[in-house]
């Protein structure tokens, strides 16, 4: 064995110790999965507790009934949807365990793990070629019957029969600035708006602040002024402490914004409906992970890199014994190192580009521990029937085509897809912001002024939703958006105006290197012509 650098004690699928993190598990509880009792700890999500118990199949795909497992762990995909305490279509990666909770898979017969309909993966194309259900039956009655039965088989869950028993209530909230998202960009925006006296409401769907910083165990880059050399997890705490000291900031956790209606925002805080009437909105909703096309990429065991970080660094659950990393950007490189720290082997890092995408120093620190890095290689397929048991990779030629004869079988029991992120832009679309596809920024992003104001006056963006970059830049952008909004509201005076220009300069300097070039090039493509000067 080439690695095994870290030796970490594991109990019940959970890491007992870790070089960087301390896992404070809550009270032991029992949850029921398809009737089977499963041990879990308070503070864990349902999906992570199931994962720790060795459960890998969370649902079935609706046509072929192929097994689907854990993927993103942050509520962006739908692979983990199940029925929880009678409520269908619950993303189990976002729901926390409670003693006695009843969890059922809702796709497959009798359940997703052992699905009788899984046979359709082999035969359905012969019996029912795609779309044939609409043409095969001439008799309308029979056709409608078949269609309704097919829809039932897809397993989108059944509406609960019980009446809602909770306490639904309603609240109207007025504020100067609403910040949607409590990650680095959102926290920075709230801090910088709050410190000039603006009345801020910060909402986040999670029960904690910090966004994706909570799984970043590595020390950050940048300058000391921007907390370089400090671990991401600590930066989350530092920002939170700063934020909680500001009396004019109202923080609402477990609060999901579901829509922007003109100048108002609808949100749900636990079981309470919120009608938020802000003067300005900062959208800092972050990004979600992309996936990659290859054979068997839906097999349980093919995960988003960030999903694995969440599982391992937030909930302390060992993702597997040996991972393959697809993508050598910073996320893939950092994740490789984090896996080694948690006592998990890394089989290889595969990169389609002719060179490593992330920082060299991140690559060097795993390479010197023996992790092979294959540039100009891609993954052809994942091996295994119900879960990943290996992978085939191959070298690519100049035209990005796999070169026959270069296939290599790699031993792994999970695969981390680290091929980048896409901005979580839905609220911006709904708000009516003009959007543009900018590959350098990760996908669809809003046009914006240099102060991060979108084409809709009073709607700002900051962080990955404005263009996928990294946390230090997100913090800087949150500051710019918030201070501009503050100045437009007539607060802060000359001091705020001065700080705004400083903040712009800081960011410009930060992006001056080759890694910033791509971002700057992307931003030039989506800068609004009508610059709003102060």
């Amino acid at each position, binding site marked *: 064995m*080439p690695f*095994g*650098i*870290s*030796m*970490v004690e594991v109990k019940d699928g959970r890491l007992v*110790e*870790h*070089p*960087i993190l301390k896992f404070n598990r809550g009270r032991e509880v029992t949850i029921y999965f398809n009737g089977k009792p499963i041990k879990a700890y308070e503070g864990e999500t349902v999906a992570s507790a199931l994962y720790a118990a060795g459960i890998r199949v969370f649902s079935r795909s609706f046509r072929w009934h192929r097994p689907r497992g854990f993927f993103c762990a942050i509520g962006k995909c739908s692979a983990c949807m199940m029925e929880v305490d009678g409520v269908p279509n619950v993303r189990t990666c976002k729901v926390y365990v409670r003693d006695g909770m009843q969890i059922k898979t809702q796709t497959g017969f009798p359940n997703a793990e052992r699905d009788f309909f899984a046979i359709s993966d082999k035969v359905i194309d012969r019996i029912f070629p795609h779309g044939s259900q609409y043409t095969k039956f001439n008799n309308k009655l029979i056709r409608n019957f078949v269609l309704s039965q097919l829809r039932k088989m897809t397993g989108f869950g059944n509406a609960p029969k019980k009446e809602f028993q909770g306490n639904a209530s309603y609240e109207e909230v007025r504020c100067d600035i609403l910040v949607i998202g409590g990650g680095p960009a959102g926290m920075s925006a709230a801090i910088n708006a709050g410190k000039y006296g603006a009345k801020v409401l910060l909402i986040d769907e999670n029960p904690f602040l910090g966004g994706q910083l909570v799984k970043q165990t*590595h*020390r*950050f*880059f*940048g*300058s*000391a002024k921007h907390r*370089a*050399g*400090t*671990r991401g997890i*600590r930066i989350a705490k530092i920002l939170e402490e700063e934020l909680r000291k500001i009396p004019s900031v109202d923080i609402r956790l477990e609060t999901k914004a579901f829509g922007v209606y003109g100048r108002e925002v609808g949100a749900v805080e636990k079981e309470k409906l919120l009608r938020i009437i802000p003067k300005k909105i900062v959208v800092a909703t972050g990004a979600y992970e992309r996936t990659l096309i290859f054979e068997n990429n839906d097999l349980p065991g093919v995960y988003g890199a960030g999903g694995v970080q969440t599982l391992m660094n937030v909930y302390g659950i060992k993702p597997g014994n040996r991972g393959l990393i697809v993508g050598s950007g910073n996320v893939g490189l950092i994740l490789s190192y984090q896996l*080694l*720290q948690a*006592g998990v082997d890394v089989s290889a*890092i595969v990169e389609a580009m*002719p*060179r*490593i995408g992330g*920082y*060299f*120093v*991140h*690559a*060097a*620190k*795993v*390479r*010197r*521990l*023996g*992790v092979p*890095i294959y*540039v100009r290689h891609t993954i052809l397929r994942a091996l295994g029937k119900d879960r990943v048991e290996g992978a085939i990779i191959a070298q690519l030629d100049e035209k990005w085509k796999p070169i026959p004869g270069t296939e290599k079988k790699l031993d792994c029991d999970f695969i981390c897809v680290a091929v980048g992120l896409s901005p979580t832009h839905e609220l911006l679309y709904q708000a009516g912001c003009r959007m543009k596809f900018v590959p350098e920024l990760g996908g669809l992003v809003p046009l914006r002024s240099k102060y991060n104001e979108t084409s809709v006056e009073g709607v700002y963006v900051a962080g990955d939703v404005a263009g996928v970059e990294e946390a*230090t830049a997100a913090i800087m952008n949150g500051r710019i958006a918030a201070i501009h909004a503050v100045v437009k509201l007539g607060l802060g005076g000359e001091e705020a105006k001065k700080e705004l220009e400083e903040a712009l300069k800081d960011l410009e*300097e*930060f*992006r*001056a*290197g*080759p*890694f*910033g070039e791509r971002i700057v090039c992307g931003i030039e493509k989506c800068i609004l012509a009508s610059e709003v000067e102060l």
Partner: protein
Amino acid sequence: MSYLEKGYAELNELPPFPSEERMKKKSVAYIECPQPIPCSPCYESCPVDAIKMDNINDPPVVDYEKCTGCMNCIRVCPGLAIFMLRLREDGKGEVTLQYEFLPWLKKGDKVELLNRKGEVVGIGVVNWVLPAERNDQTSLVRVEMDAKLIYEVRAVRKVRE
């Protein structure tokens, strides 16, 4: 840029080593950070301005004569790219590196010495440790080895009985 194709740098892609004389006097910081990235904690942590960096994106350049071996930079480097090198009177060499794995290394532990590619090139002994809890979970370990190995050993792995 071949270091970005392989994940490790060749000697010609790295800064020149400090002179033997300098390394014999006391330990000195050697930084393997050839790529321009926006990062400057080493520069900011240096109390004697031995690290030159005009812009946050510039790779650091160490003035080996100014460097006092205080280890402020190696404590904070987020890239784990700084190594303290020393040649001892008795003909042995020492490399100090950042270490973030379990179990933590202790003075006297025998370790396998790994080069930049992860190949085992020898066996060394830990002769000094800055415990992880005193440096936000990044332990510093100083490893004693053959003098000629200090130019290539960049990681260690505990020898397990």
